[in-house]
C-alpha cells in the first residue's frame, strides 16, 4: 500500500504541495484530478524521485518502506513506475535495449537471474501485441521520432514489461486520440491485479470511462480537496473544478 502523509513539497521558493495525505491500498486504482497548477504532476514526480523538488515535511511509504529516502533507481527496484507525461527522446539508445536493461535491473534486485535475449523478446512481443505496437519500435531509439500517441504506448509497454507494484501515470491520456486511448487503457487494465496499485493523474474524465477507478481525488492548491468514487469524476466533467476550488477556499 502507498501511504502519503502530510506531504509538503517546494520547487525553489514555490510551495506546490501543502499537506497532501493519501492512501492507495494494494489492488486499487486511484485517480488524481484537479485544475492546472494544483500539484498533480509534482506529486507524480516526487513519488518517482525526480531531482529539483524539496520535500519540506511529511512522509511517503510503499508497503512500509520510506520511499523518500531512496534514489530514483532504488524506487524503481522497489516497484515504483512513473509513466511520463512527456516521455523523453533518447536518440542512440535502443528501445529494446532499455527495456531489457530495466527488466534485468529489477530481476537482479530481486536476486533472480537475468533472462536471455530470446526469452526476453518473446515476452516483449506478447506485450507489444497488446499495445498494438509494430515490432519496428524495438530497434528504434527510445521515443525517437515517436508521435505523441506512440510515446504513451511505449510508456505503457515499459510498464507492462516491468510489472510494477505501484504505477503512477502522469496524464497518460493527454494527446491521445480515441483509438490510442482505448489501447492505452486496455494496457493499464491488464496490469490491474490484487497485488498492484495504480495512481492515474489526469485532467479529464474521459480516461476513467475505460480505466474505472476505485477512488477519485481532487487536488486543489497542493492538497486533496475532495474524494469520492467514480461518480465524482462525472460530476467534475459536468460542473468543472470551480465549485471544488470554492469549497476548498
Amino acid at each position: 500500500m502507498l501511504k502519503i502523509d502530510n506531504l509538503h513539497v517546494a520547487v525553489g521558493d514555490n510551495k506546490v504541495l501543502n499537506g497532501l495525505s493519501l492512501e492507495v491500498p494494494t489492488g486499487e486504482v486511484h485517480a488524481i484530478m484537479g485544475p492546472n497548477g494544483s500539484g498533480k504532476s509534482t506529486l507524480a514526480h516526487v513519488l518517482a524521485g525526480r531531482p529539483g523538488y524539496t520535500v519540506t515535511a511529511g512522509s511517503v511509504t510503499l508497503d512500509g518502506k520510506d520511499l523518500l529516502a531512496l534514489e530514483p533507481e532504488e524506487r524503481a527496484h522497489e516497484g515504483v513506475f512513473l509513466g511520463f507525461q512527456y516521455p523523453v527522446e533518447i536518440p542512440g539508445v535502443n528501445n529494446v535495449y532499455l527495456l531489457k536493461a530495466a527488466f534485468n535491473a529489477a530481476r537482479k534486485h530481486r536476486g533472480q537471474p537475468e533472462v536471455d535475449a530470446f526469452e526476453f523478446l518473446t515476452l516483449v512481443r506478447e506485450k507489444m501485441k497488446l499495445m498494438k505496437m509494430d515490432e519496428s519500435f524495438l530497434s528504434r531509439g527510445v521515443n525517437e521520432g515517436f508521435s505523441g500517441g506512440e510515446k504513451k504506448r511505449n510508456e505503457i509497454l515499459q510498464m507492462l514489461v516491468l510489472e510494477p507494484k505501484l504505477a503512477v501515470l502522469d496524464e497518460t491520456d493527454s494527446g491521445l486520440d480515441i483509438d490510442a486511448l482505448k489501447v492505452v487503457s486496455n494496457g493499464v487494465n491488464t496490469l490491474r491485479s490484487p497485488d498492484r496499485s495504480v495512481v492515474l493523474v489526469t485532467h479529464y474524465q474521459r480516461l476513467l470511462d475505460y480505466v474505472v477507478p476505485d477512488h477519485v481525488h481532487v487536488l486543489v492548491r497542493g492538497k486533496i480537496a475532495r474524494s469520492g468514487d467514480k461518480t465524482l469524476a462525472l460530476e467534475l466533467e459536468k460542473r468543472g473544478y470551480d465549485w471544488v476550488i470554492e469549497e476548498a477556499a
Partner: protein
Amino acid sequence: MSASQATPKLASVPASPLTARIAAEFAAAGDGAAEPRRQRALAALSEVGLPTSRDENWKYVNLRPLEKVRFAPPSTDARPSIEASDLPTAIGKSRYVFVDGVFDAALSSVNAQSGVTVTTHAVSPRATEAVSGARVGGENGDLRFALLNAAFATDGVQIHVARGTDCQICVELVFVATAEAKAGASYPRINFKVDANARVGLIERHISFGSDANFINCAVDVEVARDARVQHYRVQETGSRAIWFDTLTAKLAENAKYQVHMVNLGALSARSTVQVQLLGERSEVGVFSVSVGGKNQVHDTFALVEHVAPNARTDQSFRGIAGGRARVAFNGKVVVRKGAHGTDSSQSLRGLLAGTDAEIDVRPQLEIYTDDVRCNHGATAGKLDDNMLFYLLSRGLDRDTALRLLKWAFLEDVVSKIEVPELRRQIEASLAGQLNESAALAASQDPMAAAPAGATPGTNGERATHTSKENS
C-alpha cells in the same frame, strides 16, 4: 658527429633548440644524405620550426613531451616479436602492417586487387616521395609535422586506385608502434591516390604494442579524382602514454566525394591536423570525428576545409567526450574562397563534459569571401541531459549504466556513419571499453538486442564482438 658539422647544407640556422636537436639527430641517423627529398624537408622544417603552444591553432595540444622524445626512428634490434594474432581482427581484402613505420611483410596478408596498386618503400624507394609538403605553415596551412615526417620517414605506402575500380572495403593499413619515445619515433606515411570514377574504402589504424609510450608522427596525402567516391576510416588506439601527431591533406576534383571518419580513443596526447581542399566543382567532403578522452588524455583536432571551386559541399561532424581530467578539442574551420559560390557547408560540433576537471573546446570557424553560400554551424559543449538521466534511472538502471548509455548515445549518430559492419563492431567494442562499460554494451552487440539504434545486426555479431574485445 655534431650538429654543426652535419648540417652545413641548411640555408638557415636552426630556429630553436628543438630544431637544432632534430637536425643533429637527422645527421646522426646517417642515411639521410642519400635522399635529397628528406634533406629538403629537414631544411624547410629548420626554417619554420615546429609549432608552439603560442600558435593559435596549437594551443590545446601539449607540445612539451617533444622535448623528451628521440626524433630518429628506433633501432630495429630491440623490437618485440609480434604475431599476427596480436593485431586486431583483419578487415578488408588486403592488410598491410607497418612496425614503427616500416613495412612488415610477415605480419601482412597481401592479396592483389584488380585496379589497386600498393607500393611500399621495400618495393620502390620512390614510395616515400609522393607525400608532399607543398604548403607549409602560413595562414591556413599547417604542415610542419608533415615536414618532420618527410625528413625522417624511411618507409611509406603508396596506394593507387585505377580509374573505375570498385573496391569498397579494400586495403587495411595497420601501424604498430613498439618503441619507447625516448628510443625513437614512428613515422607512418601514406599516399592515397584515387583515379576517376573509382569507389574505394581504406582503413587505417594506429595501435601500440610492447611499449605504450611511443612517439608517432603520421602523414597522409589523399587525392581524389573526378567522380570518385572514397571512404577513409582512421582509428587511433595507441597506448595510454603515447604521443601521436597526425597531418592529413586531401584534394578533391570535380564531383569527387571523400568521407574521412576519425575515431580517437588512445594516446596520452593526440593531435590531428586535417586540411581538405575542394578544388573541383560539386566535390563533397565529410569529416566525421569521434574523440573520447579520459584520465589526463589530450585530444585535439584541427580540421580545415577550403572551398575553392563552386557548388561544393562540406559536412563536418564532431562528437567528443572528456572525462576525468581530459581535454578534448575540435577546431573546425571552413574557408570559402572567392568564386566558390554555391558552397554548402554544415558543421555540427558537440562536446560532452563527463568529468568535473575535464575540458571541452569546440570551435566552428567560418571565413567567407564570396556571396551566395549556405553555411550553417552548430556547436555545443555541455553536460548530460538531466531529463534523459532521470528517465533511465526511473526505469531502474543504476547511475553508472545510465551515464554510460547516454555517453554512448551521444556518439551514436557519428559512429553510425561507419559503413563497414565489422569495423563498426570493433570500434563499438573499443568505445564501450573506453566508456568504462563492460558487459552491458558489449552484450548489446548481440543482434537480438542491439544497443545502437539502427545498428545493422551482423550474422556473427556476438562472436566478432568477443574477438575484438580481446584485442582491445
